[in-house]
């Protein structure tokens, strides 16, 4: 016979003000199995906990019911308390008579009745509780960082500096991401490359970091502490072990290709390094454009390479490694505005460019060596229009969200134009100016004082007349149409998740929001974690943000990983699903509905009468299982039970409620 103790908390007047706690305790004494019941002012306090412990000894209690606040608040507190006693920490039930009773009711009589009902349910359930024991899993102290932009770089460096091994994965031939494309960063006007390239070099030289460029995620299995990850190394056609990066091949390659790094405004060769400070500082061959690989002719690079590092036979390879934690830092790209905004010329006008193109134009290492020149005729523009929120805050055509960084870099663009072209006019069409950040408002203020004309309204149409671009829009402060003639138009376009994020998310078993950004575990309190234990987020893969926020988040994700790695074993919650294989029919419904990919179908040996047979049944990986219970609900033969919430326990609760 079980020996149940019931402890009813007053929570000051929080509960006792609306619920007659003494009556609840009294009523519980009559419940079967209850040998002791009492009420107390603060059950979670030190003397409260001591009283519970004392009563356990005195009455030889083996199961405990606490009637108090939500289990989210203090279930762990009481479980810890039970560790010092003979009672198993999972032989504990919390009846939530605060959030679900006293706080939401005013009628004391009825609230007391409800509290008694809730307590009775908990007593019924605790009677069917059985001891559960936590187990531990080993933690493989090596982290995988997916995406080598500033977020990935920062996270990798922080983890590596803490003394742990890191693999940094980048699908492009060089790390650096978007930040290294930028000219200057707001609001301090630091040279973006000057502050990011030293970090890139540090990554390549760090003894704890394994840098893997031209690589993509192929497959992920396993669970926190023990992810088995397969990575595809794309063929580079250049043996980086031999290549010294002398660059002779690049100068001799006859094939010119539009440069992605310079946003289509210059050319590179088919064998190329994305940019001068690329890390690793060694070229790769672009197989889609290389004449040798496409047509079998040429091979000039192979002929001129003094070290014979060129290998046209190179193939994609895969390798597998084990990681304890994974950070996703896949970043963003700019929205393809051309299809969405035909009224802005839809890409027909060469002098209507994106903000990122302008960054390359104004950059000293860009296609114009930092001179702001129109792409169409290489002349210096005198009148420049900047259009904000192209694709952002425009649910009908683009995205409903604000891309957060554009207001500031629009101000920076205006400032740079006015600085480099002293007699220029800059017009900024805006909806709102949003500058929440240290020194941001001051920077915007300064840009206006520099002479930038801010016009509140959207641009309705951009068209061309007499070689100039005409921007027609609304000045909503004056309440009338305005047209501005411009030589150059810069569209500050929306950030969207990087191409291929869907595949990464799918392989990791994490979630995306409606716009394709990776979903954090909690928007406020767990911003760098995902729903999958051991997978963390950093930077713009989670949503639009600027560089300071990205770096902060990257360090936060790294701290989470270091926290995980500080232990060599991890305690796992015992409240996971369990399959009764004798009842399982192997239908696989549970496998489909499991959000954590914790269930697999396995074959087992069984008997059917005298016959030996092989049978398919479900099997739960308790390392991956988060105890959500979807499988238990989906199981049609009742073979799956969620430990701590078994079907039997829940039915007892229902019975108790319906007495």
């Amino acid at each position, binding site marked *: 016979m079980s020996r149940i103790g019931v402890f009813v908390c007053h929570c000051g007047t929080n509960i006792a003000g609306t619920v007659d706690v003494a009556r609840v305790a009294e009523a519980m004494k009559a419940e079967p199995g209850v040998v002791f019941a009492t009420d107390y002012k603060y059950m979670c306090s030190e003397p409260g906990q001591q009283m519970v412990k004392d009563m356990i000894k005195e009455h030889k209690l083996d199961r405990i019911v606490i009637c108090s606040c939500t289990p989210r608040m203090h279930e762990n507190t009481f479980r810890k308390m039970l560790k010092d006693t003979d009672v198993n920490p999972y032989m504990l039930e919390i009846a939530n008579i605060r959030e679900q009773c006293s706080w939401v009711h005013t009628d004391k009589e009825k609230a007391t009745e409800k509290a008694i009902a809730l307590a009775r349910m908990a007593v019924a359930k605790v009677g069917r509780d059985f001891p559960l024991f936590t187990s531990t899993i080993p933690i493989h102290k090596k982290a995988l960082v997916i995406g080598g932009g500033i977020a990935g770089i920062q996270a990798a460096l922080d983890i590596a500096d803490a003394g742990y091994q890191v693999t940094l994965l980048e699908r492009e031939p060089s790390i650096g991401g978007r930040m290294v494309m930028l000219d200057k960063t707001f609001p301090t006007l630091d040279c973006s490359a000057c502050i990011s390239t030293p970090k890139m070099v540090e990554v390549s030289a760090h003894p704890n970091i394994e840098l893997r460029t031209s690589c993509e995620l192929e497959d992920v299995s396993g669970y926190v502490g023990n992810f088995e990850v397969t990575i595809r190394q794309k063929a580079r056609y250049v043996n980086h072990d031999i290549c010294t990066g002398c660059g002779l091949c690049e100068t001799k390659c006859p094939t010119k290709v539009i440069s992605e790094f310079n946003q289509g405004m210059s050319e590179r060769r088919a064998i190329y390094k994305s940019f001068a400070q690329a890390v690793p500082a060694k070229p790769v061959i672009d197989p889609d454009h290389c004449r040798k690989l496409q047509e079998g002719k040429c091979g000039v690079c192979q002929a001129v390479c003094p070290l014979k590092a060129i290998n046209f036979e190179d193939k994609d390879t895969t390798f597998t490694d084990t990681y304890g934690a994974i950070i996703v830092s896949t970043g963003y790209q700019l929205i393809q505005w051309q299809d969405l905004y*035909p009224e802005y010329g*839809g890409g027909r006008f060469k002098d209507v460019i994106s903000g990122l193109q302008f960054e390359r134009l104004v950059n000293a290492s860009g296609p114009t060596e930092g001179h702001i020149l129109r792409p169409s005729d290489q002349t210096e523009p005198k009148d420049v229009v900047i259009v904000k929120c192209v694709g952002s805050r425009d649910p009908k055509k683009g995205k409903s969200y604000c891309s957060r960084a554009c207001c500031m870099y629009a101000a920076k663009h205006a400032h740079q134009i006015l600085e480099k072209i002293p007699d220029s006019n800059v017009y900024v069409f805006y909806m709102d100016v949003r500058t929440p950040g240290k020194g941001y408002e001051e920077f915007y203020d300064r840009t206006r004082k520099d002479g930038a004309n801010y016009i509140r309204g959207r641009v309705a*149409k951009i*068209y*061309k*007349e007499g070689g100039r671009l005409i921007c027609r829009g609304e000045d909503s402060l004056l309440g009338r149409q305005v047209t501005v003639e411009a030589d150059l138009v810069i569209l500050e376009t929306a950030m969207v998740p990087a191409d291929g994020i869907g595949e990464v998310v799918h392989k990791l078993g994490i979630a995306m929001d409606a716009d394709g950004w990776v979903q954090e575990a909690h928007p406020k309190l767990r911003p760098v974690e995902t729903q999958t234990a051991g997978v963390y987020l950093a930077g713009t893969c989670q949503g639009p943000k600027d560089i300071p926020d990205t770096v902060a988040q990257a360090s936060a994700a790294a701290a989470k990983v270091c926290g995980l790695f500080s232990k060599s074993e991890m305690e796992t919650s015992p409240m996971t699903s369990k399959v009764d294989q004798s009842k399982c029919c192997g239908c696989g419904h549970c496998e489909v509905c499991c959000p954590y990919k914790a269930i697999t179908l396995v074959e087992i040996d069984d008997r059917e009468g005298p016959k030996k047979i092989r049978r398919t049944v479900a099997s739960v990986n308790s390392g991956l299982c988060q105890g959500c219970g979807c499988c238990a609900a989906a199981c049609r033969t009742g073979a799956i039970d969620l430990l701590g919430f078994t079907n039997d326990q829940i039915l007892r609760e229902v019975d108790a409620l319906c007495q």
Partner: protein
Amino acid sequence: MQFSYYPGCSMDTTGITYKLSIEYICSKIGLVLHEIPDWNCCGATAAHSKNKMLALALPARNLAQAEEEGLDLDVAVPCASCYSRMKHTVVAARQDENMRRKLEEIIGMPYKAKADVLNFLEIFSRPEMKRACQEKMYRTLKGMKVACYYGCLTSRPVEVTGASSTENPMEMDEIVALTGAEPVEWDFKTECCGASHQVDAPKAARPLIERIIRNAKANKAQAIITACPLCNLNLDMREGEINKAKGTRYDLPVYQFTELLAVCMGAGAKDIGIHKHFFPAFDLLNEYLRKAGD
């Protein structure tokens, strides 16, 4: 090929060249248009600015008349405004069964909303129509640079018209290219021509015409091509007036796209009413027909 046909009020008056050129093409390629018997006004701007149900019911009656004929054909509508009003009715009746029943009640006859409403750009965009036109053309306007002007109502609102693009449609460009004329890339394809405001609010509306003509001219067009009697009238009638008032020298004749097709099929100027244009329209056609060796 056959259609039910709703001419609307402009086809015998301001849209006479549209009507004559359509009829000419029909006679050449065997396109048959069955005029809806006893048709009424589409409601135009007046109805929908006063009463939503009236604006839907007036076209509903026309469409119901066409159904009553029992020909089971889609309805061809030359005027962009008529087209817009009738398309609104079809969409409203198809989206909402209660609305359809209500319309039946108002017009006092059955209306099933089965037939589609098509403007002549949609009709001539069909591959078989293009093929048929191509076969009957023996003259070309090779090298004549034209700005295809669609106006607003053939494409907007997109929820009703289902147009492929509201900013840079290409249907007319493709049809006109059959004549050898070269459509230019320009930016005012779907801007408003001012519509009836050219009559009641000329001060505000005239600049709308001028900027269309100016942009066509700036992009090296020699003529503007339309697909709507009112767009055509506004541009054609006001161009000279603008030149006079502002001292500009715009010199772009304004044709319906069907006029170009008809001319290339052999229509004489009087057959399709080239002499009825306000802005001189004969010389340019003549020049290019002669250049091409006709």
